[in-house]
Every structure is written in structure tokens, then in C-alpha cells.
């Protein structure tokens, strides 16, 4: 075939103008990135700044995937050949970083590397991460036994115009057009409507208290760590349990109840008197909730430095809450140093658990571990539940 003579006739496009293989493999790469992001989601999203502004998405910077080959270890001194006006001994570039810092594995970030910014929906993340998690010790309580709700279920050829599923309908059209004699435009046969069905769901009434120590000893980082733990717990629980109520309490030497948005913005100064928080919770329970009719939970986050004089009062107040609660959890946030719960408040919870109350503690030191904390409270217990008859 001699290409030289003739040019391409008008309207006859070459195959490579219709189809980009580069773009195809690029898409496949992005798909793989998404998959691997999904696998490492806990570490990735835990650090992301999600608490602000009720954002619906999280932006996660990710590196491009590397297709690995055998490579030699990077030597301390690399040799190369260059060209230009340079004499032996000339220093073309001074040291720019710490010696040895250049040595990085595949995780290292080399200059000129491209980062992708992946936008993930918080709903999706929670979907992926909360698959196996649930509230511990959930018990059926007297109360409205069932909820009913409309849920989307299946498609039909007839339906209200507002529930027309254009995507499905279009697929039908495409399918039908596989037949060469078919009508090329939409027919009524192609239309698909979303159907709704009434579903009965057993109601479990739960109230979850989130209590945060905002005293001066909690650094910004500690507070943020605690809040991101609470954030993911709230997101997850709210999806699992429709009739869940949440209560947000923060304390220093006093305690206040907050709305959810306020709670995630709150900061404070001053000393730490944990008993005020527990008493506040106690007070709210007595005012609003009947422990026999709903499941009560308390999750408390603090650095554990309760004021010395408050030991007894805090113990009493915590016990009185624990009497009625299905579970009380304690997250100790401590910057860097892993103190392993050897604090005032840590001991309080250890005593509580030793006394046979459903209680648990977790030392949270790093953003990477936020999901570890979530998992600690919401999986281990549910497995125990399954095992019990």
C-alpha cells in the first residue's frame, strides 16, 4: 500500500483518531489507583481535613503507581556525564538536603513526580469502611418496634415521569438498536422507571454521647485527632442506624452540650475536671432518655490528665453513667508519646472494665490509627455478640 500518493478521503477517519490507547491505559491506571486507595483508605483519609464546613468529599493526594522493575540500590554518590563549561572541582550545585535523605524506597517522593488529587465522597468512604462495623451490645428495647420506609427497588416500564431512569432507558435503546431493523429513536418500550417499595426495618433506638475534653492540656493536634475519630464514628453510625440520636458534650472544668457543628469547632482552655462531663451526660440522660427504652453509649476522648482532686468524683459519675450504658468507650489521645493509658482517666476505665461493666479503652497516637480506634470499638464487640447465643 502506498500512502504517499493519496490523502485520506474526506469523512473517512483513521482508527487512531477515534481511539486513544494512551487514554485507555491511563483510565485503567486511575482505576487501579482507586482500588489501592480503597485498600489503604483508613490511613489515607484519617489525616484528611474533613471536619470543616460539612464538606461532602475528601481530596486525597496520591502518587502515580509504579510498575516495578529490578533496580540497583541507589548509591550515595551517583556518577554521570555532563557537557558545558566546567572544570574539575567545580561545584555545580550545593547540598540542598540532609545527606542520606535522598535514599528512599518506592514510597519516596522524587522531584518531578506527579501527584494526582483524588476526590472521594465521604459517603463512599464510609460505605467501604463500615461494611463490618456496628454498635456493640445493641439490645432490642421496648419502643416502636418497626420503622417503615420507602426504598428504591428495581425498575419498571411504567411509572411517574419524575422517576424516569435515563441511563437505563438509554441502555435499552442501545440494546434494541443492535438489531439493524430497529427504530433508531426512543420508543415507549425503552423507557425504564425506578420503582419504590415499602420496607420494614426493625428499629433499634440508640443514643450515642460523644464527650470531648477541651481543656488547656489538650493540644490542637490532640483535639483534632479526637475530633476526626468522632467524625468517622458519627458518619458511620448515622448510616447504620437510622434512629440513632447523638449528643455532644465538651468539658474543661465545666461541661456544656453542643450542637454537632459547634462541637467540631469547639476549643477551650483551663483545667480538666472530668466528673463535670460525666455528670452532664448523666443529667441529659435523666432529662431526656429512658435507659430501659433505648441503647445508651458514651465515647469519651481526653489526654487523660484529670485534675488530681477529681479522682473520686469522676469515678462515681462515670459509674453512674455506666450503670445505664450499653457500652462506654475511652479514647486517649496523646501526642507522640504512647503512654499506654497509664493516666488518671485511663485507670478509671480500667477499673470500670475490671468491675465487669462493658467498657473499653484505646490509645490513639497518630492519624494513621484513627481507623484502628474505630475498629477497636466497633468490630471486636460485634464479633463477641455474634458468638453469644
Amino acid at each position, binding site marked *: 500500500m502506498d500512502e504517499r500518493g493519496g490523502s485520506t478521503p474526506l469523512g473517512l477517519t483513521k482508527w487512531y483518531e477515534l481511539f486513544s490507547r494512551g487514554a485507555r491505559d491511563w483510565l485503567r491506571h486511575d482505576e487501579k489507583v482507586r482500588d489501592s486507595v480503597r485498600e489503604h483508605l483508613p490511613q489515607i483519609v484519617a489525616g484528611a481535613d474533613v471536619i470543616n464546613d460539612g464538606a461532602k468529599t475528601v481530596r486525597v493526594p496520591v502518587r*502515580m503507581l509504579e510498575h516495578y522493575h529490578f533496580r*540497583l540500590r*541507589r548509591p550515595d*554518590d551517583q*556518577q554521570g556525564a555532563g557537557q558545558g563549561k566546567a572544570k574539575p572541582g567545580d561545584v555545580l550545585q550545593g547540598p540542598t538536603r540532609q545527606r542520606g535523605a535522598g535514599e528512599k524506597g518506592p514510597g519516596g517522593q522524587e522531584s518531578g513526580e506527579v501527584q494526582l488529587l483524588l476526590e472521594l465522597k465521604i459517603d463512599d468512604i464510609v460505605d467501604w469502611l463500615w461494611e463490618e462495623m456496628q454498635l456493640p451490645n445493641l439490645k432490642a428495647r421496648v419502643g416502636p418496634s418497626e420503622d417503615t420506609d420507602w426504598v428504591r427497588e428495581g425498575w419498571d416500564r411504567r411509572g411517574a415521569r419524575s422517576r424516569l431512569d435515563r441511563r437505563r432507558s438509554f441502555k435499552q435503546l442501545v440494546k434494541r438498536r443492535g438489531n439493524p431493523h430497529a427504530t433508531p429513536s426512543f420508543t415507549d418500550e425503552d423507557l425504564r422507571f425506578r420503582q419504590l417499595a415499602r420496607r420494614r426495618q426493625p428499629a433499634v433506638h440508640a443514643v450515642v454521647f460523644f464527650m470531648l475534653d477541651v481543656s488547656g492540656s489538650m493540644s490542637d493536634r490532640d483535639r483534632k485527632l479526637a475530633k476526626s475519630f468522632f467524625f468517622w464514628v458519627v458518619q458511620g453510625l448515622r448510616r447504620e442506624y437510622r434512629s440513632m440520636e447523638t449528643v455532644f458534650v465538651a468539658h474543661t472544668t465545666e461541661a456544656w452540650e453542643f450542637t454537632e457543628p459547634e462541637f467540631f469547632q469547639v476549643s477551650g482552655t483551663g483545667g480538666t475536671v472530668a466528673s463535670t462531663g460525666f455528670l452532664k451526660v448523666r443529667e441529659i440522660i435523666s432529662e431526656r432518655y429512658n435507659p430501659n427504652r433505648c441503647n445508651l453509649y458514651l465515647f469519651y476522648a481526653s489526654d487523660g490528665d484529670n485534675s488530681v482532686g477529681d479522682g473520686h468524683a469522676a469515678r462515681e459519675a462515670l459509674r453512674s453513667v455506666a450503670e445505664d450504658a450499653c457500652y462506654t468507650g475511652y479514647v486517649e489521645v496523646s501526642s507522640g508519646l504512647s503512654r499506654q493509658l497509664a493516666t488518671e482517666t485511663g485507670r478509671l476505665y480500667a477499673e470500670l472494665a475490671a468491675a465487669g461493666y462493658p467498657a473499653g479503652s484505646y490509645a490513639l497516637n497518630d492519624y494513621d490509627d484513627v481507623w484502628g480506634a474505630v475498629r477497636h470499638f466497633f468490630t471486636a464487640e460485634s464479633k463477641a455478640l455474634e458468638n453469644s447465643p
Partner: protein
Amino acid sequence: MSEDWKAYVRRIEDLAARSGLQFHPVDFEAVPDSFMMEIAVYGLPVRMPHWSFGVRYIYQLIQRHMGNSRLFEVVFPGNPGHAYLAESNGLAENILVTAHVLGHADFSRNNLLFRRCQEQVSEHIVEHAANHARQIQQAIDTYGRHRVELVLDAALALEQHIDVDQPLRRPKYPEYLPEPKPLVDDEFRKRFAALEPSAPFTAGEVRKRAPVPPHPERDLLWFIATYAPEMESWERDIFLAVREESFYFYPVFATQIMNEGWASYWHARLLREADFIPQQAYLDAIKCHSDVVRPIAADQQIALTINPYHLGFSLWEKIIEAEGLEAARKIMELDDDFGFVRNHLTRELADELGLFRYSARSDGQIKVLEHDLPALQESLLHQKYNFGAPSVAAKHIRVDGTLELVHDHVTDGRGLDPERSRKVLEYVHRVWRRPVVLTTVDGQGSGLELRTP
């Protein structure tokens, strides 16, 4: 785009033939920039799908976006050869590129390394690669994208690990050890046998099975495709397809300096001799030429990488000036980059071009080293040894099917990057389906064994 350049193709071809270039006919085709870019990414106009090409594609897009890279042509050797020219080229650029392509066509037809690889792969690599792509698409349809991808992850990770000294279609190792030579039945033998009449000497009654591999095998793609205990035949086919393409890529890789230099020398020379080119186009083309063979970016004093076009071009100019065209053609036929640089990059030329050696410390300091010609040549070539890959060979298959790989750290001078190597072992493990171990050395030079779980 303008089609004017096509009028010049025949005349440039005639001029090239008169100047002594010998080439197979070349099909010229002007294609959109997007397609040019894909050819650069895949190395072939139609090639198997794999996500790693997607990564390169993104980088290439960014490069182009930043205006750093411009592709004028890509040429595939063969009979006929295929040359793709960017539609965005102007007339002058296309004239230059046509001459350049003919230089490549001459090179790939006459250079021994190219010839030998083309004898193996045939002169139709473009068609073969398209065929592989189709086969792999069929495999995807049959076995699913995920399974095919696992095989390609492994095969493409090992794409440099071939042995071009062996034939493309390579027989299995002999199954038995060679039989010992029949003993000469001489006087001594008779007296020796008389010493121990109860044990008559019998030679070679039981043939011994040869070990697999009989020697460390560096053609990993072939070895795995041939001896993997549980690979399916379609998986073996994918390995062999990747291997065939690597056989094609090897001479392109190992003669880059020579080949680009040769083509640049000829486009410059043909341009000078082509009196039929309009004055303006000639000037534009000369400017384009000097951009291509420019050693150092316009706004810089110093370059830390060597432009192979420039180096090759300068070497060929010197050789032809000193020894004449006949001698140069001989060198072009026989050498690859290793011989070319070692034999012809002299102290004087290195100084004239301002080539220097530098060391880059891990803290970012870059320092020029003292003049030393052999070391300079080494710096130019060290990335090209062994197809640019560390020397890893298959050493042994254990009774339980474990594959033992060994890295020749003495040759390479240091050990393997353990993180990346472990990932490659994981890829290989998925097709070998038994454990894979690799021995190399760590940063201190003591032995290090990497293994798949």
C-alpha cells in the same frame, strides 16, 4: 497540514541513494500529534494494553504541556520501513525529517545488531506487535482483564531480561547430560580392568538428567515461559510476545547514540547537498537541525545529561573527516554504542565538546570530577549494560518448585533495591505459582535473600 513535503520525498530518496545510503523502501505517513505521542509511549504503533503505559502517557502529556518535548518523527525498521511524521511539522521540518528517516533506514538495514535481531523477529515487527495486541485482547475477553493484567505485570517487569545472543525461537535445554566419551580401548585400559575383574567398567548405561537450568539463565522471560511449573499456555504466549518485542527493542536501545548520530549526520549532509530545496525552507531546516543536535538547553551553561543526537553526530563527523566515508560505513555496520564510544570518543574530542564527569551526592551536591577518559566513557555507557537492567539470572529450581534467582552484584557493583525487587518477585510469583527467592547484597555488601511469602 501541508502536503508540499511529499513532493520532495522522492528527490531526497534519490539523493540519499546517490550518496551511498542503502535502505529498504519507507512508507511515510503524517499523523496527528496525539498519535505521535502514543507511539512514543508504547514504542510501537499498536501494542498490548497495560496500565503502566498509562503512567508514561500521563508523564508524556505533562511534558508536552510544558513544551519540553516535541516529536518530529518515529521510524520503524523493516521492509518496508514505516515512518510516522507529526502533522504539525512544517515543510522545512518535514524535509529534514525525511532525510533523517533515510539515515535511520540505512542504519537499520546495515547494522549487524539490527540485522541479526530482524532475522529473528522478521522485518515486520509493527505487524507482529499489532498481532500480539490482538491476541492479548482475545485473552482478556476469554480470561478476564484481571488475570491477563497479572501476567502482563510480570512479563513487562522483566522485559529487559532477555538474552539476545540466543535465538528468538529457542529450543529447550537438552534433557540429559551429554554422554561421557567412549573410553579408548587401549593397552592401559585392559590392564586396568584386569586389576578389578569383579567390577567391569560400564559407561553411560544410566543417562543422567541435566539440571534445569544447566547454567545461570538470564533470559528470564524465556525461562519462565518454558519451565514454569503451572503456567497456562496462553500465559506463556504473553510472555513470549513480550520477549519478541524486547528482541526488537534491544538494537534500538543499544545503538541509540550511533543511530541518532548517523541519522543526524545524514540529514545535515543531504540538506547541504539538496540544491532543489527553496532557500527559506533550507534556512528553517538548518535551524531545526541545530535545535536537534544542541547539547545544552538555550538558557543554560551546562547540561547534566548528554544529548545522544549531539554526541553521535559529533563522533560521526570526526570519524568521517579523519577516516573517510568507507571506514565510517564499516564502523556503522559492525559496532554498537559500547564499541562506538570506547573506540572513537578520544580525549581531544571529549575536551572539544566539553564533556565532563560529575558526582551527585545524595544530599544534592553536584561536583565535577577530574578528567579521565575511560571513566567518562563508562559514565556514558553504564546505563546501557545488559539492556539497562541489573544482571539477574535464574539459577535453580528446587524440588518443591521454588524458583531461585540470583543477582550478580559483583558485575553490577552493588545490590538490588530491595523494595522494588520484592514487588517484582510478587509479580513473578503470580505466574510461577510457587515460591520465588532472590539473592543479592544489602547496603553493607553482605548477602540478602528476598523471598515471596
